[in-house]
């Protein structure tokens, strides 16, 4: 599903260049459930940005489902993100003035799906994360765990090839975190490819494989 080959990325600030990713090689097979761990500054966030087509890389190759992702214009990048990748964020990132249903339906709006159709589908996905009856609530009327489930439903609605989660449990208590991981587990059993960035060991343990990063390099892979 994901094939990174000798990815390099550096940020320039003034005269000094910060080499954030150094020759990163990474293979993730379809249907894998993977976590990426590392301390802050290890490059794991940048790696996630590259995987999510939110940021460019300097050299190397990124193949997503066999397609080369390189030097995309903003429009194409937006289209790839919309079609191929579902995002789950630490801060949930729901739009506060939209209901749960409208939040879930939003990616379909950018695909040009008609309102009725996308709302029907959004309701289906809310049902799948167990929040059907909360469809008409605004985010601030939902608990943290519920919000993150809405975010997961939103990430799934475009039937992405890849679910990217950035510290998805960072703002949740332990019990809620575990319940979210159970949901991810179910999605994994349904065949979805999932990559989670986390710094919590107990979360990483609940994935199939953990990739450790340090100083911009992949240091170890734990099966």
């Amino acid at each position, binding site marked *: 599903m994901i094939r990174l080959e000798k990815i390099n990325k550096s940020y320039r600030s003034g005269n000094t260049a910060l080499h954030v990713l150094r020759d990163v090689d990474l293979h993730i097979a379809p249907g894998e459930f993977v976590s990426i761990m590392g301390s802050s500054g290890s490059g794991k*966030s940048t790696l*996630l*940005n590259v995987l*999510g087509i*939110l*940021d460019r890389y300097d050299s190397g190759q990124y193949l997503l489902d066999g397609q080369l992702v390189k030097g995309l214009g*903003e*429009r194409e990048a*937006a*289209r790839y*993100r*919309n*079609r191929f990748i579902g*995002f789950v*964020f*630490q*801060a949930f*990132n729901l*739009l506060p*003035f*939209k209901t749960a249903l409208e939040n879930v339906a*939003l*990616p379909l*709006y*950018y*695909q*040009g799906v008609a*309102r009725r159709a996308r709302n029907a589908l959004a309701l289906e996905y809310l049902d799948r994360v167990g929040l059907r009856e909360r469809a008409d609530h605004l985010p601030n009327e939902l608990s943290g765990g519920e919000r993150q489930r809405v975010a997961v439903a*939103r990430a799934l609605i*475009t039937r992405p090839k890849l679910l990217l989660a*950035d*510290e998805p449990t*960072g703002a949740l208590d332990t019990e809620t975190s575990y319940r979210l991981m159970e949901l991810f587990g179910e999605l994994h059993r349904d065949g979805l490819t999932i990559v989670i960035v986390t710094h919590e060991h107990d979360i990483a343990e609940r994935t199939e494989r953990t990739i450790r990063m340090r100083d911009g390099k992949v240091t170890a892979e734990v099966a």
Partner: protein
Amino acid sequence: MILEAAREILSALRHNKLRTFLTALSVAWGTFMLTLLLGAGRGLENGVTWEFRDDAVASIWVRPSQTSLPYAGRRPGRDVRFSNDDLEVVDRLAGVEHASGRFYYWGQLSVARGSRRASFDIRGVHPDHRHLERTEITHGRFLNDRDVVEGRKVAVIGSEVRKMLFAEHEEPIGEYIEIRGLSYLVVGVFEDQGGQDEQRKIYVPISTAQAVYREPGRLHHLLFTLTTEDVATSQRIADTMLTLLMERHDVHPDDRRAIRIQNNLERFGKITEVFTWIRAFVWIVGCGTLLAGVIGVGNILLISVAERTKEIGIRKALGATPFSIVGMILVEGLVITVTSGYAGVVLGVGVLALVSNAIPAAPFFRNPGVDLEIALGAVALLALSGALAGLVPALRAARVDPMVALREGD
């Protein structure tokens, strides 16, 4: 899809009610003021046009006076006297349409009919005079050529004269009125847009007036209408006229006092020119006000974009293209400016209508209002300025990095 976009935008606007309201207010104020100014300008214009409604605009009036320079062996201070011949000669000039002389009875004269009696101005004129004063005959007829040729004692009276000398049910045509001991047959009644004063006049044939005063052929005033509406052409005709009359009366070519010429078209043209400037001024001031409103919208949208960086980042992460973000902000600006601006125009038109009804028509100000053309122009201007207001914020929004969606906090 347009409906979809509208939904997105409305929800964003509803989310920031106060801000949206304040922005809308500033734009509405701008268009309201623009409309008021334009309406007031129009009122001023209508007022002045009204002042000119009385007489033919394309006309030249010539009045003789005293010479101020010696010429051809003649002393200064001599009275210039016009005659029927002068009128005929000038009437033959190219560009002259109708011509009439005037012979004034001195002062207001007491006019009697039976026991009724009142004082009026009496003018001896040619039949073509009605074109010069825009005289409207309501009963009978105006003076004709035979009246002049035969020196008939006939009179055409103004509607005010009729009111004073005749009872309401009395038919004035065929009745006699008495001026300075002579009887005149009333042949017509007229109205004049010049108001009551102009309707207090009595017209008699020029030849009759000249005979009464024993000054055959004498004219006090020469009046002409022109075939042109062009100011420059009228000025050439006036110059030709003046030169011709000066030669006929041995007036020094540099003598500015001997013959007074009044070109109404030129006067009207000057005022029209002033109005062009006033109109330009109004647009500049109005557009300035509008511009301030638009800049306000632009600013608020900029703030809005800054506040919504996170939201825009999330939208982009979820697949919003830069184009769709630009569209979103642009249309937001358009929606605010066009709806509030339109409301301002409507309000302005309403206030103008109220003012127009409430205050009486004053000299030089009447019927303020804006026509559809100008209202549509203002709305088009609004649409343009709305797009302009949204442009900078929209481009800034399009540059928002989707990575902000990943950052923690806020």
